[in-house]
């Protein structure tokens, strides 16, 4: 990526609405061939108070692919994921060192507004967390606060499009006014994905999105992730090796707060270069 792109991208984050920024960034990236780097982290360390949870993690995450973070519990993969949309800012004693660049712009630059950043970097959580509002309002919440669309047909369109992309439209189109909390677990999780899509992000972070779902709902969400890859850069934290193998193109293995290995998923699962990765994948620990 050139210097010109960098300034352009950072300028967009600061000055334009989230939708414009997202659309433009996508236009820029589609013009390029191959999978260029979307997120570039270098020497990221995270501290909770005095305790260091993440040690000098450097990683490049390619655009419009699925990157899976794997590793045993407490290895720092969720912590790192939450650095990418600065969700760690909401934790009181948490501090982050190092830089993370999205499209070449450092998101920890003081000039960056984390609120706007989070509109570009959507997030889906471990447990489905729809708001206690109607299905429609759950989707419309993001666009409304960012001023993307007012109530009316423009908003209806966003809601329908987001639900369709999240493969939920056919199941809920007749009951958009019902509470989102009344859906099944799998539907709730797809509702949360639709909610994230509605603000038109470039990147979607998923923190063990299927750990609270049954196998059938999991299969649907995985299918959805595979479709979303065409338009979004997806980073997924998962405990399930099978899931990582099924949905991701690249994988990163974390252990005790260190990034051990990053590689093509196929290669990592057949021929890992680090012994610890080998041990984890074959189930010797974790």
């Amino acid at each position, binding site marked *: 990526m050139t210097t010109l792109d960098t300034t352009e991208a950072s300028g967009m984050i600061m000055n334009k609405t989230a939708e414009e920024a997202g659309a433009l960034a996508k236009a820029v990236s589609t013009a390029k061939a191959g999978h260029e780097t979307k997120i570039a982290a270098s020497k990221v360390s995270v501290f909770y108070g005095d305790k260091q949870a993440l040690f000098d993690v450097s990683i490049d995450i390619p655009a419009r692919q699925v990157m899976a973070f794997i590793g045993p519990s407490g290895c720092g993969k969720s912590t790192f994921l939450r650095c990418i949309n600065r969700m760690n800012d909401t934790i009181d004693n948490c501090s982050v060192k190092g830089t993370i660049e999205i499209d070449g712009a450092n998101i920890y630059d003081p000039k960056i507004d984390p609120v706007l950043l989070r*509109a570009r970097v959507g*997030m889906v959580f471990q447990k489905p967390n729809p*708001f206690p*509002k109607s299905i429609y309002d759950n989707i419309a*919440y*993001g666009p409304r606060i960012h001023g993307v669309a007012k109530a009316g047909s423009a908003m209806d369109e966003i809601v329908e499009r987001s639900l369709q992309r999240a493969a939920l439209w056919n199941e809920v189109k007749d009951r958009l006014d019902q509470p989102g909390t009344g859906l099944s677990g799998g539907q709730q999780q797809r509702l*949360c994905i639709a909610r994230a899509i509605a603000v038109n992000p470039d990147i979607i972070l998923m923190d063990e999105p299927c750990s609270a779902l049954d196998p059938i709902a999991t299969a649907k969400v995985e299918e959805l992730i595979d479709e979303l890859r065409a338009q979004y850069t997806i980073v997924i934290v998962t405990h399930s090796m099978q899931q990582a193998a099924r949905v991701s193109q690249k994988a990163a293995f974390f252990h005790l707060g260190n990034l051990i290995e990053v590689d093509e998923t196929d290669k990592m699962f057949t021929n890992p270069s680090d012994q610890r990765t080998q041990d984890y994948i074959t189930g010797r620990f974790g």
Partner: protein
Amino acid sequence: MSVTLLFAIVLALAFVGYLLGRANASGLKAAGNSLHSIPPYHGYFVALWCGLPAFLLVFIWQAAQSTVVDQLLLASLPPHLTEGMTPARVSLMLGEIKNVAAGRMFGTPDQAIIDAAARYQSLQNTASLAMVVCTLAAAVAGIAFARSRLSPEFRARNRVDGILRWLLIVCSILAILTTLGIILSLVIESWAFFSRVPVAEFLFGLNWSPQTPIRADQVASTGAFGAVPVFWGTIFISVIAMLVALPVGLFSAIYLVEYADKRVRSVVKPLLEILAGIPTIVYGFFAVLTVAPFIREFGMSLGLSVASNSALAAGGVMGIMIIPFISSFSDDAITAVPQSMRDGAYALGATKAETIRQVLLPAALPGIVGGVLLAVSRAIGETMIVVMAAGLTATLTVNPLEGVTTVTVQIVTLLIGDTEFDSPKTLAAFGLGLVLFISTLALNILALQVVKRYRERYE
């Protein structure tokens, strides 16, 4: 022998029973039996059988003794003393006999009365002695009976459980019966009131002036019992109180949960809760001596006429009293909203204020509403502040600078002073009390329903 000493002896006997039961069981065990329950349970079983019947006997005896002794005394009186007397006169005479027995003599009583007093004294002594004997006998008999039941297969553990269960049931029934008794007495007195003053006049009448002549020749109004101005006063003061308490309580709760760091919270929260510990009479002083004069001076400097007992002063201070109620309920409700809701909103790029307004408050609303309803019912029933700071005249006004009166204030003023207990004036207090009771009960039930529904959602 005093009842306290008797209690101590029964307790000691129960302890002896425990030791006996345990020793008994240990003996059985040492003889090579395998016991169903461990020895201490055998001990508890014997102790409970020793103590419970004996205590029960003392209570019943204490309750019944005076009636029985009175009846015996009356029966023994020479017939000429009681002939043709009304029950009221008889009870007066009984009182005189008891006074004489206690050594309080006024003038020279009749010889028959002095004899009766002596008889009364001896009856009392016999009764007390009989109580002690019977109680101790019951305790010992309890020990004997319980010990006779002990055997290796005896399920002492289960029996002790059963006895304790009954004990708990009896306690809860006592609480319920007390409530029922209170309601019943309120309803009966109100019934007497409503048989003199029509319900419709009471509930919808606009004129409240409960002064009635005590003697026929007295100059006083005939009494008007239209309680609407009184109800209005209560509602008005409660509304003012809520206008003060709701924003302050809710906003301080939001600040404490969402913005304040741990140190600030650990200081501010207890400080807020101190407000709840201040006796309401102290709030009353505050309202009368500080707030009311301040409001009056301030109003006068603006050229307004302010009553010294303004609704604003009473309501405002009551609002301060209610702040901790609202803030602690709102605090609980907002804290109970799962962190995932906040995460969800932040991850969509919502600011803190947007998250609070659009996600947290709607999610916490049922809990907050429940707390507010409980606070309203507290405000309606609050007495001391309004007795001191609100007025006595029942006026229908929406001007907070005028004085109004409330249901609780009227109940207090109707019941103090020398009044007959069967005049409509006094009985009106019970009518007001019933209305107050029904409305706060309804509010509480509503609030608990709301809170319950809310709990079901997140637990």
